[in-house]
């Protein structure tokens, strides 16, 4: 991210002056607020529930949400251009199914992974072309994508298929120890995806064009930017990320199932928006989406640590925590806006 953190007159100022007068630009406020609130939520929970402050809980949060983080990354690209991608949940299901089925058919695990990634990317490409070249609203085009991917999944198999391939299980169980705490490879891949995406958005022409389209598509076009390629590109990226998330998900649950990931697209969208990205496009960061995923995750963790809520109170409390979160975030970012 471009490090524009100092006021204009800083050229002559000393380093200390810069630190002292440091004041984050307005556009980073949502992210900072989200991070602070996340830590706050964590702290408050830690006071109430034993064991929540265990760093392993944080690690588990990453492990359990690796696929959602990757989905969030792809979704961030799409939402930044002012679009939306409803197909990602279904693509995750399709990916698990393709992986499971091809492995069952005896494919090499790498061929299987390649097939998964290629399928997701291709679906993304198709939707992108529909959206850009036929002027179909992203909501509909990707809703059709949702139906299509889920339909293909059912067509491959209605029943769930276990993944028993040694390479997959090996990957799924491989852990990295950091002191006493462990993290899985999937989480590391997710974090790497975030890093790559952050770089692409901040430091490549493609990334800046994404923001430009979200800011004003007509202007971007008049400025001579590669609007078509970029608009199709974000859906390709989202499709790829969904497939990658699907791979991570199939490592997470080692099976392919047509009922996986129903409604996961909403989780991904919610995470992105909670992370401070505007649904109208043009403003937001992948780092925010990562935080958004963690916020959703910590809410679930808090609830399972509590363990005394009934099914309906779980839903109500989830809503209330979400509400509290967005309201506080709103006021934190509004003050200086």
């Amino acid at each position, binding site marked *: 991210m471009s490090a524009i953190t100092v006021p204009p007159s800083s050229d002559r100022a000393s380093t200390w002056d810069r630190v002292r007068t440091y004041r984050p630009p307005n556009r980073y406020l949502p992210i900072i607020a989200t991070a602070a609130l996340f830590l706050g939520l964590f702290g408050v929970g830690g006071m109430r529930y034993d*064991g929540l402050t265990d760093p392993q809980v944080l690690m*588990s949060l990453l492990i359990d949400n690796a696929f959602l983080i990757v989905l969030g990354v792809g979704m961030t690209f799409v939402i930044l251009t002012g679009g939306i991608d409803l197909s990602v949940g279904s693509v995750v299901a399709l990916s698990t199914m393709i992986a499971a089925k091809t492995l069952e058919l005896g494919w090499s695990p790498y061929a299987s992974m390649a097939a998964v990634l290629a399928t997701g990317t291709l679906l993304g490409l198709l939707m992108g072309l529909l959206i850009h070249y036929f002027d179909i609203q992203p909501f509909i085009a990707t809703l059709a994508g949702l139906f299509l991917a889920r339909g293909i999944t059912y067509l491959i198999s209605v029943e*769930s298929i276990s993944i028993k391939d040694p390479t997959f299980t090996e990957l799924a169980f491989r852990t990295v120890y950091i002191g006493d705490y462990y993290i899985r490879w999937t989480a590391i891949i997710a974090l790497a995806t975030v890093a790559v995406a952050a770089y692409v958005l901040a430091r490549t022409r493609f990334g800046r064009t994404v923001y430009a389209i979200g800011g004003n598509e007509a202007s971007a076009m008049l400025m001579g930017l590669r609007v078509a390629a970029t608009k199709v590109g974000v859906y390709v990226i989202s499709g790829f990320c969904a497939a990658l998330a699907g791979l991570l*998900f199939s490592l997470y649950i080692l099976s392919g*199932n047509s009922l996986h990931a129903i409604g996961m697209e909403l989780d991904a969208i919610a995470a992105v928006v909670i992370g401070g990205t505007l649904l109208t496009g043009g403003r937001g960061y992948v780092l925010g989406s990562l935080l958004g995923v963690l916020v959703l995750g910590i809410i679930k963790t808090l609830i399972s*640590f509590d363990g005394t*809520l*009934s099914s309906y109170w779980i839903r109500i409390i989830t809503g209330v925590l979400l509400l509290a979160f967005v309201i506080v975030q709103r006021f934190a970012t509004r003050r200086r806006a």
Partner: protein
Amino acid sequence: ESGSGGNDDGTITMGFAQVGAESGWRTANTKSIQETAEAEGIDLKFTDAQGKQENQIQAIRSYIQQKVDVIAFSPVVETGFDAVLQEAKAAGIPVILTDRAVDVEDTSLYETFLGSDFVLEGEKAGEWLVENAKEADVDGDGTVNVVQLEGTTGAAPAIDRAEGFAEKIAADDSIEVTASQTGDFTRDGGKQVMESFLQSDDSIDVVFAHNDDMGLGAIEAIEAAGLEPGKDIQIITIDAVKDGMQALADGKINFIVECNPLLGPQLMDLAKKVLDGEEVPERVVTEETTFTQEQAAEVLPERQY
């Protein structure tokens, strides 16, 4: 200080990860478990995965971190629990499955599985139809035309019940499933699908619904079409929830295969045994029966869910 659980204070802490609250059946199941736990002084940590496997895994993982004494759950789907169950095993926490099985390589990952056998339920329904094929051929054309209201596509109960049913009716050539469509386990779904079946086919003899709710929806559709459910079209369902039993007693349904949600007592019993180090069987099938119209009228008054 380690977690809130632990045997040190004598009480058992159980982490229970429920699938969701998708049906009356499930709610009865949850209630039974919560009430029994309370009655037996077991400290129950409950979460509801809202139908999502990832939520369930996350919940189980948090139980491991909280160091509960025993974990029980009704898996959302059969596959994909290997990793988290291995973690539980590594942490020395025994696991009991309820309601639905999981499909893992290493069966030592869980102690026991308590629940119904969905295939068997389908078979019972099929058997009854084969035995009563004559009466079921309501229009007397020599073939029994069955329409099937499936559960959610891909869900284990839907797949298994269809499978068990198909297997048994294969014994009788005159019985034929002419149409089959998902009604998503809901009344509204059952009603809408049945409406369209009635429009496109006027030789329907029997409806086989994968649960009571869809059967009840079908009844509404049949009545709206001016026919008499139970007479003009026979209905077989699975579950035996109260509304279903009422309809059975009223003669609108012809046969119900029970699928018992009241697993609480058996579950707590098993948990205690496991924690005391007793041997438990690998598979405990819930005691379930079937109901005809006469039987329904008898047991209806003391039906609690």
